């Protein structure tokens, strides 16, 4: 079983046709339903859905409060290495980029983690570039073992691992993983990834599934919004999430909605999303998948992030730097430009102001 066969069975032209044919009445009817089909989800992504954005927002807000309460979970990424063997043409870490390459050693990792821990955060996301040579699995495993005693939840965002490697990391106290498909369009995927291990489209698709099979508790997927038509990417991401939720009902599936940002290689997105479209995507996800986690990064502006607190997002990053060792040295040379550089304390204050509770620690395995 692989999601690839399901993905191959859908056709973009048919999806586009359905998107065009969706009426405002269709959207209103769907908003009154207690459960939605994938077809309904597609309808919410339609231009007619944008016309119903306020109704969608009210619906998404009610469902979020119903399932998650008035809470917002906070986490921060920690970049451990930026060596990369891939040529992703939209990424500031890509092999092309002439940024300064470095990697944290064990004591750097410990110091960086201590700094993050001192902000009160309990959830951490460890990142490396995709380099088996500079950041092998053993390096990632060691890092997890170093930071795990400090945090209640450790996630990773690294290259594709095997089921066995995920099992190995889970034994070292790994909880979660993030893997962005970037684009679900296989032709575009090939163009955007001219070389490197990441070039294998199907392997990329299957990796979240490998993580599920390896015992990872939280699996976060997403497309990099702006590479292809956002409605198609949003639909296929939902389909992927749905597939994983069905196959692995014991795994918590979450979706991120990253919009492409300016970066060191100066890539110009071919399909940029307007703010309202990003909001529509998040709302549609929440309405179609009431219990799904939705993660919002600091790629978004403070204004957007403030308003999205009530609209379905369940997890936000705070105190972010995308530089390797940035939590210790305080500088920010980067994978991409962040828009919201508020500290953990400032984010927590903003969330409380809206009547929500910032959550540093969601759960801990006993």
């Amino acid at each position, binding site marked *: 079983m692989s999601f690839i066969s399901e993905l191959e069975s859908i056709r973009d032209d048919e999806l586009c046709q359905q998107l065009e044919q969706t009426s405002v009445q269709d959207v209103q*009817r769907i908003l*009154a339903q207690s*459960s939605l089909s994938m077809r309904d989800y597609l309808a919410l992504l339609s231009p007619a859905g944008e016309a119903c954005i306020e109704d969608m927002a009210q619906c998404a807000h009610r469902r979020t409060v119903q399932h998650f309460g008035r809470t917002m979970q906070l986490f921060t990424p920690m970049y451990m290495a930026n060596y990369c063997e891939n040529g992703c043409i939209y990424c500031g870490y890509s092999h092309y980029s002439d940024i300064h390459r470095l990697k944290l050693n064990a004591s750097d990792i410990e110091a960086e983690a201590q700094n993050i821990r001192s902000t009160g955060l309990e959830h951490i996301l460890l990142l490396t570039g995709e380099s088996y040579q500079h950041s092998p699995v053993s390096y990632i495993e060691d890092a997890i073992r170093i930071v795990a005693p400090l945090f209640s939840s450790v996630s990773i965002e690294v290259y594709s691992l095997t089921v066995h490697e995920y099992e190995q990391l889970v034994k070292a106290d790994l909880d979660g993983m993030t893997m962005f498909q970037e684009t679900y369009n296989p032709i575009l995927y090939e163009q955007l990834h001219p070389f490197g291990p990441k070039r294998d489209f199907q392997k990329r698709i299957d990796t979240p599934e490998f993580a599920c099979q390896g015992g990872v508790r939280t699996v976060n997927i997403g497309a990099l919004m702006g590479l292809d038509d956002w409605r198609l990417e949003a639909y296929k991401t939902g389909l992927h999430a749905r597939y994983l939720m069905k196959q692995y*009902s014991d795994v918590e599936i979450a979706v991120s909605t990253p919009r492409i940002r300016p970066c060191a290689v100066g890539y110009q997105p071919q399909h940029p999303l307007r703010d309202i479209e990003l909001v529509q995507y998040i709302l549609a996800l929440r309405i179609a998948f009431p219990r799904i986690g939705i993660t919002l990064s600091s790629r978004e502006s403070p204004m957007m992030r403030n308003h999205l607190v*009530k609209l379905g997002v369940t997890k936000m990053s705070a105190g972010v730097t995308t530089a390797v060792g940035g939590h210790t040295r305080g500088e920010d040379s980067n994978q991409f430009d962040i828009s919201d550089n508020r500290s953990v304390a400032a984010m927590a204050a903003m969330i409380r102001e809206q009547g929500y509770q910032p959550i540093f620690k969601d759960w801990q395995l006993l």
Partner: protein
Amino acid sequence: MGEMIGIDDKQSNTTMKETEYVIGGIDCSDDTFQVGNQCFSSRLLVGTGKFGSYQIMKETILASRTDIVTVALRRAGGSEHSENILDYIPKDIHLMPNTSGARTAEEAVRIARMARVLGCGNLIKIEVIRDQRYLLPDNMETIKATDILAKEGFSVFPYMSPDLMDAKRLVDAGAATVMPLAAPIGSNRGLETKGMIQMLIEEIDIPIIVDAGIGKPSEAAEAMEMGADAVLVNTAIASSDNPILMAQAFHHAVLAGRQAFLAKCGAVQHVAQASSPLTGFLRD
């Protein structure tokens, strides 16, 4: 009894099955009920128990326009029970033996194998019941029996208490459909487990047949509107004052519910409107 009603159906059973229903652009004529690679012409399955006579049962089956009827297997008693129920079931209707009486997976498997000797196809309804007060199925034994019989080539229709995890286990065990109960067998209490069945409809990819407890045609229609693939009815038909008329009523109800599901029901208006807009920032 009921001679005038349903007589047309008897004569034109075959043509009725081929009737085309074209509603608002959706052609329901190809909306056959598919299980694995088998197609059935009706989404109403009828049980053959509790009828006053085999003759009434036969007329009821015809009036219901069903394509699958269930039968049970019992010890044969010799000459006093020489009437063969199969003589009263039209040959073009599929027989689905059940394993009623089984209290364990082993017993269900044995009954299924004996039923197969009688040469009635590969459909089998697994029913394993230990609880004699409410007649609730034993999901765990049912899963075991499903696993064994699916491997032997049966098309397995397991009767079960609607539980999502168990339904998934049944799928993994090779079930052809899942048959959650609406309420205890013969209770006519309707869709008491509605919410649980809804989850199965959403999460399980093989057909969901709502079995047991449906007491009225309106409840059968409701199950179909929810998105159930079919319903199985016995007591509600057999115990009515006019089983033939009731069978027709269920036929129409199942069809109506199915059509409503395909057509999609209109929005229920919630009066409450939000106090403050949540998307004003997008217009600034």
